[in-house]
């Protein structure tokens, strides 16, 4: 038990030896992504304990799902990871289609790949920009958003919305692409290629950025797996898992025939690493730098996928096919499907009871488990490292609190 401090009996006023301070990186803190409260126990500058408090953005999306039909719930999936709404819609639609064993047309499948990968690029751009902001540099944030605007324009032409699209729905997509959209998309990819190198010079190889991120918040592969981290956080620690390749058949069927390598460091080097800057000398596998670098590689990987999806989509003839009716009957039974979203593997689980309204709806959030690893990583680091570590996990509160 704690040993009593020998005190002189004349001591009247109680001296609180408060060298350790309880500090609140409160809900409205500029660097936490959305509404997250981090309670830090700091001893001077060293953080001895960190405890995230979540739930500020909880909107009971899952309970509401129990009185809406599957297609009516799509807008709720948009608002979970609001930076990558397309991937959320895809995840939910595939889960429902898995329950109903419904096959979408081949054209719709290729269009879904095209839109999902564009959504991933947009999400990673925000992740990169916000991470620069956490480390104090403001300019990359604006460069990233300039590119993201172009993608949002493309989405706006496709489905009319810029943030919460509800474009991919159960049984296909709400509308086909307008004419000329593919040419504009290709034009965007053309001009986006050189800009990626610009981001590398701006951040990845920047000496101060490397100093702030290399070797900070090292997540060992075992701990990543234990905590259930997924996506770039997992791949940043060298674990070679990507749902687009190792996922369930209904999801991987969309990607078969597409040539792409998983952006993970296998025996010392990344795929096609001759095109990118070398890994800095003091970057340890699984630190903030690697998580950031994996995201940058995934952007390039998604660009290749989008190009392949464009020419496959343009080769499919015939109509896109109508999505299912709004109140489509769900068969009795349950289905769970995890898809590879930009932040990690987002799982959707639903239980049908024969009526159009699912009996139970549940979403497994990737950022939730990614954030769970933050207290482990931040133990013993400096206060200035906390935003660096939490930023590298690229969490979105909408997805965690649902």
């Amino acid at each position, binding site marked *: 038990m704690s040993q*009593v401090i020998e005190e*002189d009996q004349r001591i009247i006023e109680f*001296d609180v030896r408060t060298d350790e301070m309880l500090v609140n990186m409160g809900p409205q803190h500029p660097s936490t992504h959305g509404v997250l409260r981090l309670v830090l126990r700091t001893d001077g500058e060293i953080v001895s304990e960190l405890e995230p408090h979540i739930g500020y953005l909880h909107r009971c999306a899952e309970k509401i799902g129990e009185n809406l039909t599957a297609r009516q719930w799509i807008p709720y999936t948009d608002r979970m990871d609001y930076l990558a709404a397309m991937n959320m819609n895809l995840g939910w639609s595939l889960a429902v289609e898995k329950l109903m064993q419904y096959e979408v047309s081949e054209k719709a499948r290729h269009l879904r790949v095209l839109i999902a990968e564009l959504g991933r690029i947009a999400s990673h751009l925000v992740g990169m920009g916000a991470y620069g902001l956490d480390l104090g540099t403001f300019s990359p944030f604006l460069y990233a958003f300039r590119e993201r605007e172009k993608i949002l324009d493309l989405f706006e032409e496709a489905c009319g919305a810029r943030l919460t699209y509800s474009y991919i729905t159960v049984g296909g997509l709400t509308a086909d692409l307008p004419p000329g959209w593919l040419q504009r998309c290709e034009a965007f990819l053309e001009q986006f290629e050189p800009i990626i190198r610009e981001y590398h010079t701006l951040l990845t190889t920047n000496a101060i950025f490397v100093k702030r991120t290399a070797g900070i918040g090292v997540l060992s592969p075992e701990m990543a797996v234990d905590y259930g981290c997924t996506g770039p956080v997992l791949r940043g620690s060298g674990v070679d898992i990507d749902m687009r390749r190792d996922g369930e058949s209904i999801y991987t069927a969309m990607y078969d025939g597409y040539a792409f390598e998983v952006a993970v460091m296998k025996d010392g080097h990344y795929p096609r690493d001759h095109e990118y800057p070398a890994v800095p000398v003091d970057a340890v596998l699984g630190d903030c730098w690697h998580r950031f670098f994996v995201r940058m590689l995934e952007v390039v990987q998604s660009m290749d996928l989008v190009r392949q999806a464009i020419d496959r989509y343009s080769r499919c003839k015939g109509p896109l096919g109508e999505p299912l009716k709004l109140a489509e009957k769900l068969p009795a039974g349950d289905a769970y499907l995890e898809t590879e979203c930009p932040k990690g593997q987002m799982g959707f689980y639903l239980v049908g009871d024969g009526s159009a309204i699912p009996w139970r709806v549940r979403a497994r959030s990737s950022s939730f488990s990614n954030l769970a690893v933050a207290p482990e990583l931040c133990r013993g680091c400096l206060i200035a490292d906390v935003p660096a570590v939490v930023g590298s996990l690229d969490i979105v509160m909408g997805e965690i609190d649902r």
Partner: protein
Amino acid sequence: MILVATGTVSVTHYLIVGAIMFTAGVVCMAVKRNALGVLMGIELVLNGANINFVAFGSSYLAGEGRSPLGLDGEVMALFVILLAAAEAAVALAITLNFYNNHGTVDVDRADDLRAQSTKRNHGNRHAAAAVAGNCLAGPPRLLCGNSFFGQPDGAAWKVCG
């Protein structure tokens, strides 16, 4: 305004300012209960001395244009400033060490070397004054079981801990 009206400033005026600073420093060292207050007193004393050094060494103030100390006054002032910096560094290191070990910088609490017996009766008189002075600061529950009732040292603390 008397000084101003009586023409230029002479060494005496500097000496008077030095004297006031010196006395303020000595009083501050004597009176303050906070170790840092004592340190500030030392700084004031050193500065009082410095003023005198510079006053004697300045050719501006000297009557016949040749100051009694010549350049030595200013050089001595420089050395005083340097050594005051060194002294302050060590004094602060000791104070912070004391703070880390005892949790307070109250100079009256630094009496570990005093013999046990004198500490107790000395303690009572001091406790009365301390309580009078500090009962506002500490929350009321601290009044229970303090040394008024003459328990042996330390026991009181465990009671209300």
